[in-house]
């Protein structure tokens, strides 16, 4: 039986409006069936190794997000390292990338280029000119912005 937290994750993936949504979900389902996608306390973790230490562990591997109130999936910045390969990329200027990590949206003027032209409302992996990813944003063609959905600035804003 599919756990309820996996359904929350699925809803979040569907909302990405990615061309590769099916591939992402196939991968996630495979991870779930292989017991490497697990829930520990409220964290959703993708295990990268196995050990006898795992049983008592509160954390290991890559945190994909956490399950918040009303079973809502709240993504963690590291999810971009897992689903990033399935997303189209927007390459931003340094200034745009810095502002994006402050939680701001990305203006189209700051975008240096795309790996593939995105559809309207499609979610993109936001990278700098070196190809280093900083988060995920939703492309809004009419408004000429990429709306910030998730960024690495969370590490500072959350005070960790």
């Amino acid at each position, binding site marked *: 039986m599919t756990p309820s937290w996996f359904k929350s994750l699925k809803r979040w993936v569907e909302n990405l409006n990615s061309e590769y949504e099916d591939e992402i979900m196939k991968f996630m389902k495979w991870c779930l069936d292989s017991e490497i996608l697990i829930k520990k306390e409220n964290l959703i973790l993708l295990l990268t190794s196995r050990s006898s230490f795992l049983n008592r562990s509160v954390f290991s591997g890559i945190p994909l997000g956490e399950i918040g109130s009303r079973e809502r999936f709240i993504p963690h910045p590291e999810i971009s390292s897992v689903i990033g390969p399935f997303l189209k990329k927007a390459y931003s200027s340094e200034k745009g990338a810095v502002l994006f990590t402050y939680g701001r949206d990305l203006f189209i003027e700051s975008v240096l280029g795309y790996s593939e032209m995105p559809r309207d409302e499609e979610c993109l992996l936001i990278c700098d000119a070196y190809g280093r990813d*900083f988060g995920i944003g939703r492309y809004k063609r009419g408004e000429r912005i990429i709306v910030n959905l998730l960024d*690495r600035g969370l590490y500072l804003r959350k005070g960790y």
Partner: protein
Amino acid sequence: MLPKTLARKYGLREFMVKRYIEIFGVKGTKEFLDKVERGISSYVRVNTIRGREEEITYRLMEKGFDLKDTFVPHVYSIKGDFSPSSSLEYLRGEIFLQDLSSAYASFSLGVKEGERVLDMCSAPGAKTTHIAQLMRNKGEILAVDSSKTRVLSLIYNLARCGVRNCYVWIEDSRKLPSMIKSKFDRVLLDAPCTGEGVISKDRSRKLSRVEKDYSIMSSIQKELISSGLSLLKEGGILVYSTCSISPEENEEVISYALEKFQVEIIPLEFGERGLKSFMGRKYPREVTKCRRFYPHVHDTYGFFLAKLRLVKEVKT
């Protein structure tokens, strides 16, 4: 009268100044306290899990940061117009803000790829992420800390730095020998302490401690080192460190380990020698192989470090 005068001048408790005079002498104490007031240099460790060192340092220098090599590989002193913690490199986990002495502790552990390592008081994870880097994310690290709040910072630091070979437990490390049957190749014990060495960062420590805290912490540290040595394989290495310069928390704990366990101290290259005596207490000669770091001498936090090899395994 001098301790009272200095205590008033620097806003410290008088007993602390008396202890500093015993360690440094009068001139050294003034230099120590002046440096504590001025603060020490900032250091960053380049996290090679996240990228190539040359590229990361180049990007930092492009942003105007001035980097200087230190005696610990991948660790640089850093100066700049803004804090490196607000840089993209920090957010991507390409750098970690870590004091030089602290990085020397994790470096001294001498980990190798594929080993089993125990980090006993691991939060917030500066040394844990460094160990993972030195192990190239291979092998396994069991990172333990008793504070749930601090473990949260550890988890986010591990995630930010791309550490993949670590298992985090919320547990009092003193209880570990009854919970774990297998032994470790290496153990890092960065013990909880009075934090006397980090006054330059945390000014509240100037007045927050009383004299009996040293003996309270010392007892806890002795229990922790016993636990760590019990979990070590024969020939295994334990590195003991504190961010305190108080001998009760350092030389006394190592003397205890020498007395109770079959261990030897491995000399380290950098730092001042451990103390032979303090306020009438004498320590075994071997304890001078331990290392001390001081703000006014090494431009680091006050720090203590000892590298021990377990000669004969403890039966549990």
